[in-house]
Each structure stands twice: as C-alpha cells, then as structure tokens.
C-alpha cells in the first residue's frame, strides 16, 4: 500500500462525511415521521454501536456485517420470501 493516511483522507473524507450526514438525516427522518419503526431500526442502531466498538479481532466493517447477519447454522425448512431485508427479521 503506497497511499498514506493523508492520501486516503484526501480521497475519501468528503464522501464519507456526506454519507455520515445521510445516516444522521435518515435517523432524524425516522424520528420525525409518524408510526412505528420495525425491527430494522434497532438492528441499525446496534450495527452503529458495533461499528464504533468492534469486538476484538475483527474490523469495523466486519462488525457491522456480523451485527446484521443471521447466525443460525441449519438450513430453513422453506422460503417465505425471495428477497432479503438487510437485517434479521424479528417479529
């Protein structure tokens, strides 16, 4: 890796700042609107915490993935949908 931390900041800081504000605005938007958020909201908040304090031995990105992943081991009996939510469904 020839690029330095300074190079990486020069390349990605503005873009990451933009994305960070998008996340903050998304959470504000949820707060502002009517109704109840579903299971994805607590999953998202938990993933943010995982990013800030990743378990030892894994990166922030891996911690977010793990936080939003199904950790069961066995194949399920039957599919009830074809798509995915992005977070593990909890009714």
């Amino acid at each position, binding site marked *: 890796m020839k690029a330095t931390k300074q190079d990486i900041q020069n*390349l990605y800081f503005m873009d990451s700042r933009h994305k960070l504000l998008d996340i903050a605005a998304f959470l504000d938007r949820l707060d502002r609107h009517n109704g109840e958020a579903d299971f994805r909201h607590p999953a998202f908040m938990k993933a943010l915490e995982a990013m800030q304090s990743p378990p030892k031995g894994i990166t922030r*990105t891996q911690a977010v993935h793990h936080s939003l992943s199904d950790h069961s*081991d066995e194949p399920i009996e039957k599919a009830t949908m*074809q798509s995915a939510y992005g977070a593990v469904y909890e009714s």
Partner: protein
Amino acid sequence: MKYIEPHGHMVSRTTDDYQKIAQAGCEILCEPAFWAGFDRTSPEGFYDYYCQLTEYEPKRAAKFGIQHYTWLCINPKEAEDAEFAREVMQIIPDFLDKPNVLGIGEIGLNKNTKNELAIFEEHVELAKKYDLPILIHTPHLEDKLKGTRLILDALKNAQVDPARVVIDHVEEHTIQSVLNAGFWAGMTLYPESKCSGARAIDMLEMYGMEQVWMNSACDWGISDPLAVIKCALEMKQRQYNAQMVEKVIYENPKDFLQQCPNFSI
C-alpha cells in the same frame, strides 16, 4: 485499459451498454444464468433462455468485439420448487457442448433452505460429472454469512477441487473463509447492496490479490456495467500501478477462466 467482465447479465442490458463497456476496454464478458426478476413457469422458458445465452447473446456481443461466454444452471431463487428445478436441470446437458459454455453457474443459495441446498448439491454433482468449473452465488445481505458457511460445507463434502470454483459476491465477513479454503473469490461492485469499489480495494489490501476478481454483475436491477473499470481507476487513485490493476481486472479472471475447456483468448 483492457479488462474482463467475469459476471454480467447482458440479457437485461441495452445494446448501448455493450457499446460503453467495449469503449471502456472490455474484451471478454461472462454471463451466468440467473433469475430474470420473475419466476419462469415452465422448463421450456429455461430452454429459450439457454438458447439466448448460447446463441443470440454471443452474436450481440461480437458486434462490439467482445467475446461472450456463459454459465448454465437454474438459479437458487427458482430452486425452492425442487421438482421443477430438477426438470429444468435435465435440459442443461443438451447445452453443455455449446462453444461459449464455461461451466455450471451461478448456482448457490438464496434464503438458505433445504430445497435450495439439495439443488445446489445436485448442480455440483452435474459439474463433477462433466468435469466443469463452477460459479457460485452467495445469498444477499443478512443471509450471506450463513449461506456462505453452508456452501463451503457442501463443497467440502462434495470433494470438489477448490481451484476450479469461484464463490461470488464475497464481502468483508466472508472473503477470508472462501480464500482460506482454496476457492476463488468474486467481489461484486454494486451501487446499493454487495460491495463498493473502495471496499473491494480495501479487501485486496487486506487479503491479497491472488484468486480474486471483480465484477459488476450488472442486471435488471440498479447496477453499473462500468463498475469494474471505475474501480480500476479508483485503484490508480490509490496509487496501484498499471501492472497491479491489470492483474486484478484481466490476468486473474483469465487465469481462472482458462480452466474452462471452451475458454480461449
């Protein structure tokens, strides 16, 4: 700069896209059989699709100087009805001697069900029977970690040669287990789900540049047929030299694909 697009669903793309990727340097494109955005209602629907992949699409690509190859299977999203999937699979051997067929793919899992897993294992046996390489789709989002583990276990049980299998759509939480088991890893560059160019380059930095490729998997959804070449430019911004870029976007896919009997440059 020249590059190989190892995974693009061109049946869903316009001719303009062929023109754009050709202008960007794409010389070879590989198109795995996949879900068309809806469930097909008969094996005949798949027969027509396989004809499209092996006869029509190569001609469309050739108009822009692009060599077109394909992988055949019934994809995991339509494998939940196992009996239907088996009917479709009976058609596949009729197409395996077509000159642009690389192997069996993209097989894999979608929601990690018992039927999907059974059909996946039967596809692996089909590949073994015809001595063909395999391209594997790993599930999306929350299902990817579990699905990748199930796929790795099934491949271990099937005793396939991992050097002839590419496991696609890896992300930061799955790439290491794929590479450690000796398989090739495909990183899919998608605007929303899967992986960005920046993250793909991060993975190259963390896990090395061996047995990995990058693809756009451009299809009918939000996707970018120029994603590979855009990532190559991003690699240059991160001070990778031309030789390293060419290794990832051309030499690596070429090395894997040369294991396919029908592949030639």
